[in-house]
Each structure stands twice: as structure tokens, then as C-alpha cells.
């Protein structure tokens, strides 16, 4: 029983380690919490498709400039 209580206390301490964010306006805070929830666990589920769509759109917009930019970035190591 004590072990369970200690574990529960430890979990509570972790959860309340930070004060929840409050952006001042109700709908903004809700919006922020909805967005941030996706980035707390496995953010790459969103990040990878977004990056590929974004890269494809940038290629359609810039064309050759993107290819040139990548060449420049490849020298950037």
C-alpha cells in the first residue's frame, strides 16, 4: 500500500512540476493546449508529412532555387 502511495505521490509531483500554461484569453489557451498535445507524444507523426508537403510546395514555388539551396546546405556540415 505504501509503495503504491509513494508511486502515486511521485507521479503527482511529476505532473505538477510545471504550472499549466495560461495565455490570458480562454480560446487562445484552449487552442494552444490542443496544438501542443500533438507535440508531446510522437511529434513526427505530424512533422514528417508536414515537412514533405511543405518541401513539395517550396519546390513547386521555387523550382531550381530549391535544388541550389540544397547544394549549398550540403556544404554546410
Amino acid at each position, binding site marked *: 500500500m505504501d509503495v503504491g502511495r509513494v508511486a502515486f505521490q511521485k507521479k503527482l509531483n*511529476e505532473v505538477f*512540476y*510545471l*504550472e499549466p*500554461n*495560461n*495565455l*490570458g484569453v480562454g480560446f487562445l489557451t484552449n487552442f*494552444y493546449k490542443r496544438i501542443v498535445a500533438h*507535440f*508531446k*507524444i*510522437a*511529434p*513526427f507523426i505530424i*512533422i*514528417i508529412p*508536414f*515537412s*514533405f508537403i*511543405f*518541401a*513539395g510546395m*517550396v*519546390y513547386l514555388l521555387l523550382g*531550381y532555387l*530549391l*535544388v*541550389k*539551396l*540544397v*547544394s*549549398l*546546405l*550540403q*556544404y*554546410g*556540415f
Partner: protein
Amino acid sequence: MGFKDWVIDFFSSFLIVIRRMILLIFTPYKTMRKISREKDFSQIVILLGLIFVYFQLSHYYRKEDFSGLIVYLIFLFGLFSTTGFFYFIARVFRQKTTFLSFLFCFTYSMVPTLIWFMSNFILYLVLPPPRTMSILGKGFSIFFTAYSLSLLLWKVILFFLSVRFSSRLPFFKILYMIFLYLCWFVPYSIVLYQLKIFRVPFI
């Protein structure tokens, strides 16, 4: 503590670092929260050691005046300046913060940077630039842009979480701190670029 204990401690820290690098991909929030309470210095030494190995390796192919060690020391200066800056500002806003918490978080937030630079270095050897307008060249360019953007977004998330868990400040104050940080870090990066030390800032 004998040599045997030291070796065991070092390897257990190494395993923790590898485990946390993987966990930062799947559960960045929870993992960064744990990192912000960390006190095992070996983990910092291991991460900075990996970065040192990268600088030494890349130096052989960069063909520039500055040695890998000098570039590494400049990187360390940047890392400690960043840590010190955020610690100082957080202390102005709130008293209960520790330098160690910032140091651990910022060192772990270098993981996406290290992965990008290391993979870029390997790609430079396997597929040396410049890229062409062939289908393969275009395809690679789109892939590389998406790959770089993914790592950049991961980096932004880890950087934000580092400041959030170390300073424990609310969202707008963190944004303000990051804005103040960029005010000096962007010109600093431009100077390093002009001096041909970093083409892409190692942040």
C-alpha cells in the same frame, strides 16, 4: 571508486544517453522533464564527446584553416553562453532555477543538430554536391529539404521544452526570452559565418 566501477558507471550513462536519444523522438515532453532533473555529469561528457568526434571527422573534409579543436571550442563557448544567458534571464524572472537543469536540457537538445550535421556529412561523402535538375536531383532535393525541416522542427520542440522545464516560466515569457536570445545569437552566427567557422550555425 575504482576503475572497474568507473567503467560500469560510464557505460550505464552511455546506455541512458542512447535510450533518451530514442525517447526524445517518441516522448519528447516526458523525457525532457526527466532530463531537466538529471544530475549525472557523465551524460553531458558523452554527448559533448560525440560532438567532438563529429568535429574531428568533419575537419578532414572541410579543408579550412581552423582545426577541429578550435571549432569545437567555439561551439562550447556558444553552448555555455546560451545556457548562461537563459539561466540569467530566468533568474531575473524567477528565483528557483538551477544552471545544471539548463545545461542538461540544452546539451540533450543538441541531439537533432548532431544527427543533421552527421548525416549531412555522410551524404556529402556518398552523394557529393552540387545537385542537378535531373529527376533524381530534384527528388533528392525535396527529400533533403523535408528531412532537414523535420529535424529543425524537432529541434525547435526540444529547445522550447528545454527552456520551459528549466525555467518553469509561462509561454509568453519563454517567447520573450527566445526573442532576446535571437537578438544576439543571429549577429553572432553571421560573424561566425563571415569568419568561415560555421556555414550553418551549430545550435
